[in-house]
């Protein structure tokens, strides 16, 4: 019995001592290629919510700029994609991307796959599940890949007692219905892209290599 306990303690200690991967180890291609400019591809929508694609597309510009990258204006690129029949990013997900370098001058293309985009009025939750894939337009290799499963808690506490619970339920349903789903999308961007190595316009450029990297799948509930 003593041996088992000792073994368990050693196992726990070892598990807790394991060091997390650094950004340089997790995303080596980012530090090798050092992309400066990013073209945001129209999101790949795997949900039944048709509006998610266009709504989510505009939310990516700000966080990527804030990370220190030169990002092509979504309005200009979207117009170009529609004219050149490139609106469906599925066609390019695993194909040659050199045309984006030739036409736009982009070093990398950011693909997003929307896997979940819904609202639960009674439960007071907004759910989004988005996968982010940054691919090089020069080599075609994946530079960065991460997924975020984020739920936004929009519940309101109506107070104690039976009446309070009913008030809370109604208030939660109203608050959830009134909260735009894009809020969850923005929060997902913030969570997932926090782990993206900094670009050239950031003060953190090339200094975050030793920083601990997050997990490839981020699950979080935010208020």
């Amino acid at each position: 019995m003593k041996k088992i306990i000792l073994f368990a303690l050693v196992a726990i200690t070892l598990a807790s001592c394991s060091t997390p991967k650094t950004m340089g180890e997790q995303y080596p291609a980012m530090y090798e290629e050092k992309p400066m400019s990013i073209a945001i591809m129209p999101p790949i929508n795997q949900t039944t919510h048709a509006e998610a694609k266009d709504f989510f597309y505009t939310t990516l510009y700000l966080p990527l700029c804030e990370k220190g990258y030169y990002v092509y204006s979504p309005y200009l690129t979207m117009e170009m994609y529609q004219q050149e029949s490139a609106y469906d990013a599925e066609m390019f997900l695993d194909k040659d991307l050199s045309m984006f370098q030739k036409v736009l001058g982009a070093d990398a293309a950011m693909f997003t796959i929307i896997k979940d985009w819904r609202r639960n009025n009674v439960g007071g939750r907004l759910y989004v599940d988005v996968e982010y894939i940054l691919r090089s337009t020069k080599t075609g290799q994946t530079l960065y890949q991460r997924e975020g499963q984020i739920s936004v808690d929009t519940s309101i506490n109506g107070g104690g007692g039976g009446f309070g619970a009913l008030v809370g339920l109604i208030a939660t349903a109203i608050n959830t219905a009134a909260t735009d789903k894009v809020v969850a999308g923005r929060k997902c961007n913030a969570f997932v892209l926090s782990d993206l190595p900094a670009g050239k316009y950031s003060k953190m450029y090339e200094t975050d290599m030793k920083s601990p990297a997050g997990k490839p799948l981020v699950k979080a509930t935010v208020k």
Partner: protein
Amino acid sequence: MKRTIYLSVIATMALFVTSCNTTQTLYTWYNYEDVAYEYNKEPTEERQVKVLEQYKKLTDKQACMQNMDIYSTNQGKNKKVLTS
């Protein structure tokens, strides 16, 4: 006793100062996200004008740039570069 109170005050103040730290952004975004989203939801000409105005404001009135040298090098001489 006085020393303990003095140290506690300093510790509290330090905690206060660190918790008051606001997240510094690289750029000033004004109302870009909301204006862009509204236009996307309902693309009218009026909203398109608002989006373009936002873009102009973003490029002309940047007050939060941290990386001035790179920005001025890449954006050319015509851009008004403000110190943060």
